């Protein structure tokens, strides 16, 4: 396990941090919100593509830079700092992983170069209920002459309102709750029978509900084997969870720094409020939680690159710890700022809103504690 960045990784981190600071500050998200853009930001998507960020997990033969998850984690942490709305989690992590791990040569050859170039974005359409439950896939995939017909509905698909293609998990065999019988399909967003209902979400990033009515997909667009999409899905989900945990770490770190600065400038009773022990101890506990989560995220990123056996365990650890951390820090950020923290004009509320979405996506603390316990045999 490697906890120290290589020179290349450090350079990428520096670039990503500078980009988030200069091009994607929180004020930018605020601007998108106020303009009603619902998290859609074509201009910055193109800039992210120019930086090569979409190709970090894509092999060089398909136009990527193949730098691995530790590198991807640095970019995610950077965008987390400013709670930026980008298609990176869905496209560069989940899309690239699902197609890269399970796609046929033809699919990879057709799609990965477009993903790497930022020409096409993807979104994983998985959950059907209000809580992350990846095995509970009920959307039907029925064989027809040339391929499959999909019928069903997907809830809260991140980036679903602007993705160019969906990776839809559907059931070709068995019942909801079983891993066997899940098949993954690559479905262009303009496919006939696919309806996208854009959602206005609390974090201003947006999302979409999907409904699929007799959507025809050819056999060539199956990712992984028919009925056996679960292994590809599970592996890609873990990468997504780890990348999202890295993003959450960045958000928590930035909110904490904002709070620390306030503690060192705001005066009450003729004192800097940071001199009050009741606040000092809570700040120190937040710092401890931050440092411990940082270790989990770093270990999970490194384990993903090493394809370690305990990767699922570390993915759940990172996502659960990051979930607890982000609520602790974002809630305390509002409380430490007092009245100003309750105003829309202040950034602390934006972090707290985004925190709820970050936790819910790809499984919250409760989901991952349960998974961790199962992986540990109890």
């Amino acid at each position, binding site marked *: 396990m490697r906890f*120290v960045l290589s020179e290349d990784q450090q350079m990428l981190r520096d670039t990503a941090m500078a980009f988030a600071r200069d091009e994607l500050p929180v004020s930018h998200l605020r601007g998108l919100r106020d303009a009603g853009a619902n998290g859609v930001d074509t201009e910055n998507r193109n800039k992210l593509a120019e930086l090569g960020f979409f190709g970090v997990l894509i092999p060089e033969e398909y136009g990527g830079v193949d730098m691995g998850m530790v590198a991807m984690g640095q970019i995610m942490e950077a965008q987390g700092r400013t709670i930026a709305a980008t298609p990176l989690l869905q496209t560069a992590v989940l899309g690239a992983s699902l197609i890269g791990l399970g796609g046929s040569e033809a699919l990879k050859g057709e799609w990965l170069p477009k993903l790497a170039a930022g020409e096409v974005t993807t979104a994983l359409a998985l959950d059907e209920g209000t809580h992350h439950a990846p095995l509970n896939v009920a959307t039907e995939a029925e064989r027809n002459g040339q391929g499959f017909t999909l019928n069903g509905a997907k809830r809260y698909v991140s980036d679903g309102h602007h993705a160019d293609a969906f990776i839809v998990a559907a059931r070709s065999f068995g019942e909801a709750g079983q891993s066997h019988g899940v098949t993954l399909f690559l479905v262009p967003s303009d496919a006939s029978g696919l309806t996208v209902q854009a959602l206005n979400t609390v974090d201003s990033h947006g999302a979409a509900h999907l409904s699929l009515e007799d959507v025809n997909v050819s056999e060539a667009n199956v990712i992984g084997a028919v009925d056996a999409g679960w292994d590809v899905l599970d592996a890609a989900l873990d990468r997504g969870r780890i990348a999202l945990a890295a993003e959450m770490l960045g958000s928590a770190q930035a909110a904490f720094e904002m709070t620390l600065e306030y503690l060192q400038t705001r005066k009450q009773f003729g004192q800097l409020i940071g001199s009050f*022990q009741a606040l000092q101890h809570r700040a120190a506990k937040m710092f401890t939680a931050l440092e411990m989560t940082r270790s989990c995220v770093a270990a999970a990123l490194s384990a993903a690159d090493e394809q370690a056996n305990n990767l699922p365990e570390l993915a759940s*650890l990172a996502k659960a710890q990051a979930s607890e951390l982000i609520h602790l820090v974002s809630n305390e950020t509002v409380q430490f700022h007092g009245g100003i923290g309750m105003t829309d004009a202040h950034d602390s509320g934006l972090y707290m809103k985004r925190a709820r979405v970050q936790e819910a996506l790809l499984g919250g603390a409760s989901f991952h504690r349960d998974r961790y316990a199962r992986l540990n045999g109890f």
Partner: protein
Amino acid sequence: MAFDAPEELDAFRTEVRDWLEANCPASMRTPMKDDEVVWGGRREPFKNPDSKVWLERMGEKGWTAPQWPAEYGGGGLNKAQAKVLQEEMRRIKARPPLFSFGLWMFGPALLEFGNDEQKARFIPDIVKGKTRWCQGYSEPGAGSDLAGLQTKCEDKGDHWLINGQKVWTSYADQADWIFSLVRTDTSVKHDGISFLVFDMDTEGVETRPIKLISGSSPFCETFFTDVKVPKDQLVGQLNAGWTIAKRLLQFERSSISAGGFGGTGGSGILPPQEYAKQHVGMDEAGRIADGDLRGRLAEHLMFSKAFGLTVQRSTAEAKAGQEVGHTASILKYAAAKMNQEKSELIVEALGTEGLGWQGDGFADDAKKATRGWLRSKGNSIEGGTSEVNLNVIAKRVLGLREHQ
């Protein structure tokens, strides 16, 4: 040479492996028993005779303190070699030959602050386990506010004269020598403290064990009445003891958080989820039947894992030469929380089986766990309370100011 060539390191590994094979007695390759832990010193009973042989052989090589300088009896190994030694010992499950406050706390501080004569006098006997050291820090009126200590040390020309009382002195009743903080100037606080070492057999030194809620007595009250100490046993400059004290506390906190806590970490006690499986049972899906307890067990296990990874990360960052911002204080705080949580969960999972004190009505490991749970309450007090550690994080790491 900073780094060994791989082939040299391989040769060293072969040498270590052969030596251990020839010199580590068979019984020293079995799991440590609580009553066979060797602390060394004049009173060491060596309950298992093999442990004496093992300590002597390791002490002779200096491998009880692998990275200390060879000129003072240490192993003189570089980091890479020390790691090889550690790996080879772990490979054959060799017991640590010596547990010692001299190795963990006093020795590192003396190597940094002592003069050549003091190092030559004290370090070799720490390495060989011939002297057992205890720590004279806390006083009845100086716990968290350690710098408020009052034990008086007067300059009597040809000797120092000590009067006062220490408390929470770990194993003072079994120690040969003490390293102690004493007051040499009453007009200032931190700058009036000196660091002194002396023999516990000196006239005027008295120790009384303190019985804890767990029933054990690892700590003592220690009284000094007109204790005469030779002048050359002052470490560092007069009134400059606080710097050494703080440095030594870092060693102490590191060694505590590296797993040196009293509590339910000892041998024979299972992880909490194992007791829950036994005493609460499992449901049909293979989950611990009490869902609430199961959730808290998972949360604790994850916290423990996060802690372990943080220890690994801080070691890796230190090796890479990166600044480690007072990680010792973070780890001490987290380790205390983790150990106490674990102890609570074990007793909870044991149910009434965790409520025994002594006698045949309860399993041995359950009784040990119960006492370990009580002992663990000290984890957030000893070596700097959790509150003091949070103060240190807030002020030194986060840069928050003192209240005016």
